[in-house]
């Protein structure tokens, strides 16, 4: 009896070991694949243009050079302007968006709110059916007159049905009795929301705030649609997009530094701009990642 038990256990251990090794190899390989392309961009950004022309992009600079960064920063006006636009957009958008998402999420789960199902459906329906890009574009440009206006990028990113649903399921874990007892004590709805509900949903606010902030930091789509080249300062990712896709854009922005046009390091400048435009997100992300994981986990468990 004892013997069979021991051998059965040994067998389990062996198969467990096999699975574990498969895991280490597979996950290790995949994780490396996720990381390496970023190192490729980083390495190339420090490579001299002549080395790129000779032997292509590489992880390790064959000829170390800071020339691309020098040009990017020699004429810092454009990139600093884009940084400021993106930072302001991210801060304002996240603050306002978060407040609106929280308010909506809280109101929509209050059992004593009569129209909650109707409004929930009103919001959810927009994920099922939409007017599409062309009418949206005409609305922003011809009816709201927001072309070349930062509001055209800021406003549409404030709310999304997904985040509202997420908030709703978070707030649901707070007993309604708290709202009721505060009401009996004479607190108004906004007071209850600000003083009682918001402090209790900090983890939810952190997660949803991160989602919104990441959206604004990486925003390029609405900027491309609505901020034309007539505007000097546009968002950071749009700036990067222009550097990547338009050699003319790069030559023009490098023109005021003392570089011959044919010497402009087109390829390494793309990479250097990418590093500068992505940098802060990469630096922050190991710290914020656990909030994301927490948020997604809670959302997943609650369904």
């Amino acid at each position, binding site marked *: 009896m004892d013997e069979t038990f021991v051998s*059965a256990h040994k067998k389990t251990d062996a198969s*467990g070991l*096999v*699975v*574990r090794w498969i*895991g280490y190899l*597979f*996950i290790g390989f*995949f*994780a490396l694949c*996720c*990381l390496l392309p*970023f190192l490729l*961009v980083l390495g*190339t950004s420090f490579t001299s243009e002549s080395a790129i022309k000779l032997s*292509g*992009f*590489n992880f390790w600079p064959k000829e170390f050079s800071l020339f691309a960064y020098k040009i990017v920063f020699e004429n810092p006006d454009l990139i600093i302007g884009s940084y400021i636009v993106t930072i302001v957009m991210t801060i304002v958008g996240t603050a306002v968006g978060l407040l*609106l998402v929280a*308010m*909506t999420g809280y*109101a929509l789960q209050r059992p004593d709110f009569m*129209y909650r199902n109707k*409004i929930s459906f*009103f*919001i959810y329906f*927009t994920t*099922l*059916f*939409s*007017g*599409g*890009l*062309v*009418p949206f574009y*005409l*609305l922003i440009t011809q*009816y709201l007159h927001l072309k070349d206006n930062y509001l055209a990028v800021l406003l549409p990113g404030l*709310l999304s049905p997904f985040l*509202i649903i997420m908030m709703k399921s978070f707030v649901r874990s707070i007993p309604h009795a708290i709202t009721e007892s505060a009401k009996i004590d004479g607190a108004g709805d*906004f007071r209850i929301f600000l003083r009682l509900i918001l402090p209790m949903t900090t983890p939810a606010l952190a997660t949803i705030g991160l989602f919104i902030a*990441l959206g604004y*930091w*990486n*925003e*390029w789509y609405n900027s491309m649609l609505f901020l034309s080249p007539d505007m000097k300062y546009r968002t950071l*990712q749009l700036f*990067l997009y222009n550097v*990547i896709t338009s050699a003319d854009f790069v030559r023009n922005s490098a023109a005021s530094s003392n570089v011959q046009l044919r010497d402009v390091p087109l390829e390494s400048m793309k*990479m250097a701009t990418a590093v500068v435009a992505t940098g802060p*997100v*990469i630096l922050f*992300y190991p710290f914020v*990642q656990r909030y*994301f*994981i927490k948020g997604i*986990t809670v959302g*997943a*468990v609650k*369904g």
Partner: protein
Amino acid sequence: MCFPAVAFFLIFSYMPMPGLYLAFIKYNYSDGIFGSAFAGLENFRFLVMTGDLWRLTFNTIAYNIAFILLGNMLQITVAVLLNEMRSKWFKKVSQTMMFLPYFVSAVLIGLIAYNILSYDYGILNSVLHSLGLDPVKAYSSPGAWPFIIVITYLWQSTGYGSIVYFAAIMGLDSEIVEASEIDGANAFQRIRYIVLPWLKPTFIILLLFSLGGILKGNFGLFFNLVGANNTALYASTDIIETYVFRSLMTNFNFSMGSAVSLYQSLFGFIVVLSANWLVKKVSPDNSLF
């Protein structure tokens, strides 16, 4: 407290809906929406005649099916394997690395693809060259793009998506696992008969959600990988959203763009309703509404 949200969706989501009327007219910029000539179903007829509609539908759905099936398979595999690991350090580091692609913009993803695939400088051709093989012209071979796009999608979304499954595995009662071990189940059997069935409801919910978007493309991915006007690749990379974008920004054919959008919305709507109906029949607890 809902008022701002109601106003928001009313303006940005509901107000464009009547604009779908564009699909039924021959839009003329100087006459505006309501001055342009009514064309009935002419725009749709044109889309069918040129074969555009068929190509767009096929590409969009085929890519989405690949994304959904392969995506979920890889996410489940990663979650299950992560769960088997003992080293906390390894788990943390690898998860951080796999999560990284989710954090960067679509624009950077496009640049990364260029880094690897560029004919003159790309690292893929450097590697092929050092192996004595012929270089590939990725940006002019349509056949390669289904692979490139699907691999990039998996690369970007797996770390993020596997968290949901990982969280679900965490909810598995450890007593069941222990009992199975006492009964002599090995690791493979444990995964096959306990962990995977346990993940089925999560998979069904995620499948339902993604079915709803089966006619919605991943515009950022396609646009930044392929480029705006790479006509050589349209056959295998043009999806509904890239077509609509082009009709707005390059061809200024607003009516055609709207016709495709309307088709997309209606078709998607029907798919969601039927998927939901189907799930309600099979397992009523998992349906969306």
